[in-house]
C-alpha cells in the first residue's frame, strides 16, 4: 500500500500499518530511501506486538506476567523496556507505573519506544527526513523539505474537528495523552480514580518514549503537573483543561 510518485520528484513513501492496536503511519520523505526500509519497519512493529502485547497470551510480556518465564528468559528488548519503565516510574513519582493494578503492562512506553527504534531503522537505511505517527504519538526526523519544518497539529480534545495549536520543528517528538474519545482512560495510581484535571497534555521533546510517559504521568497528576513538567529539562508541555483553558511551560512558544 506504499505510494511512491514517479520520476525525479521527491517521492514520499507513505504507509499505514494497523499494528499494536493502533494505526502507525510511516511517512518517508527522503528520496534516497526505498520501500525495503519501510518493510523493515513494518516487520519490526509486528515483532514488538508479538513480544509486548498484553492481549496475546503467548507474548513474552503475558508469560512473564503469569510467572511462566523469568526476566532472564525474555528477549533483550523486554529487559531494556522494563528498565526504562522503572526509571520513568521513579522520575514520575509513581504516576507512570507499568505494574499498576497488579498486572504488568508497559504499553504506555512500548508504543513510543517502538517508534524510536523504527526511527533508528530508517536512519540506518539512509533516511534523514521521515515522520512516524503511532496512534497520535509523533516522531518527526529531519525536515519534510528544504526550508520547511514539520508541522504537527495538536488535536483539540473538546472538539476534534479543530486543532488546538500547531507545533513546528525539526527532529521533534510530540506525544499527547488525553481523555478524548475513549473517555477517561488514565487512572491516578494513587487514588484509583480516573484523572480529570486535564482534557489533554502534550509533551514535546527529543525522545518519544519519554515524552509519552511524561504526558501520561502529567495527565494523572492533574494540577500538580505544572510544576513537575516545568522541571523536565529538554521537554516542553502544553495542556488543555476540560473548560478549554490552556497552560504551557515557559519554553513552549505560544
Amino acid at each position, binding site marked *: 500500500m506504499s505510494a511512491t510518485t514517479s520520476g525525479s520528484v521527491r517521492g514520499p513513501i*507513505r504507509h499505514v500499518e494497523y499494528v499494536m492496536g493502533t494505526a502507525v503511519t510511516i511517512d518517508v520523505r527522503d528520496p534516497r530511501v526505498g520501500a525495503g526500509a519501510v518493510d523493515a519497519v513494518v516487520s519490526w512493529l509486528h515483532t514488538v506486538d508479538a513480544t509486548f502485547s498484553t492481549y496475546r497470551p503467548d507474548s513474552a510480556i503475558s508469560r512473564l506476567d503469569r510467572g511462566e518465564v523469568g526476566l532472564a528468559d525474555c528477549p533483550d528488548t523486554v529487559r531494556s523496556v522494563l528498565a526504562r519503565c522503572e526509571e520513568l516510574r521513579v522520575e514520575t513519582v509513581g504516576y507512570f507505573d507499568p505494574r499498576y493494578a497488579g498486572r504488568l503492562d508497559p504499553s504506555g512506553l512500548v508504543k513510543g519506544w517502538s517508534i524510536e527504534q523504527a526511527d533508528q531503522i530508517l536512519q540506518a537505511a539512509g533516511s534523514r527526513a521521515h515522520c512516524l505517527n503511532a496512534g497520535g504519538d509523533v516522531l518527526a526526523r529531519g525536515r519534510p523539505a528544504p526550508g520547511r519544518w514539520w508541522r504537527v*497539529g495538536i488535536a483539540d480534545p473538546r472538539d476534534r474537528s479543530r486543532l488546538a495549536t500547531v507545533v513546528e520543528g525539526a*527532529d521533534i517528538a510530540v506525544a499527547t495523552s488525553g481523555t478524548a474519545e475513549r473517555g477517561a482512560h488514565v487512572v491516578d495510581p494513587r487514588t484509583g480514580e480516573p484523572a480529570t484535571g486535564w482534557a489533554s497534555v502534550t509533551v514535546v521533546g527529543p525522545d518519544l518514549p519519554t515524552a509519552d510517559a511524561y504526558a501520561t504521568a502529567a495527565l494523572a497528576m492533574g494540577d500538580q503537573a505544572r510544576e513537575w513538567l516545568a522541571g523536565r529539562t529538554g521537554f516542553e508541555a502544553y495542556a488543555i483543561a476540560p473548560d478549554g483553558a490552556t497552560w504551557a511551560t515557559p519554553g513552549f512558544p505560544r
Partner: protein
Amino acid sequence: MKRIVLTALTTITGIVLLLGVKSQTGAPGLATLAAPGAGSGSTATKRTSAPRATPTPTATVTPTPTGTPTPRKKKLTTKKKSSTSKAKATPRKVTHPRVTPKPKPKPVTRMKVAGQTADTPYGPVQVKVTMLGHRITDVTALQLPGGNQRSSEIAGFAAPQLRKEALSAQSAHIDSVSGATYTSQGYITSLQSALDRAGA
C-alpha cells in the same frame, strides 16, 4: 528509486530540536508566531547545551486562534510569466493599460476513491475521499463501527468531526496530528489508504 545506504551518523543524542530555549540556558529562544498557513522563514540553529549534552530544543508554534486553520485556496492553474515587456526609457503615452490574457485553467479531474477497511477494536472503518486534482474536497464514511451502543456513540462522535479535521489539516499543510486514538486512527488509516490509491 535509488537506494544509497549510508551509515547513520546521527543518533538520538545528535538531535537538533526546535523548541523554545529554557531560560536557564541563558540563550534567547527561537520562537516565531505566524498566521496559520504562513510558512515561517526561520532557520534551524544547532545548539549544544552544557549539561548532559542534551540538545536544546527550539520550535515555533503557530497558535490557531479559532482552532481551525484557515483553508488556503490553492490555485490550480499553472503560473505563467506575464508577457508584458519592460518599459523603455522613452516614455510613451499609454491610453489603455495592457491586459495580459489569463491563462486558461487546466481541466482538473474529480475522483472518488474508497480506502481500505481498517479494523479497529470497535469494528471496521472505511472512508471514501473525493479528490479535485490533488485536493481533498470531501471525506465520507462508508463503514463505521456499529453493533453496540458505545461503539455507535464513538463512531458518531469521531466521523463527522474527523472529516473536518482531515479537510482543515490538509489546507493548513499539517504533516501529522498528535492526539488521535482508536476509531479516529482507523478513520485516518482508511483515509490514508484512499489518498494513496488516489496518488495524492
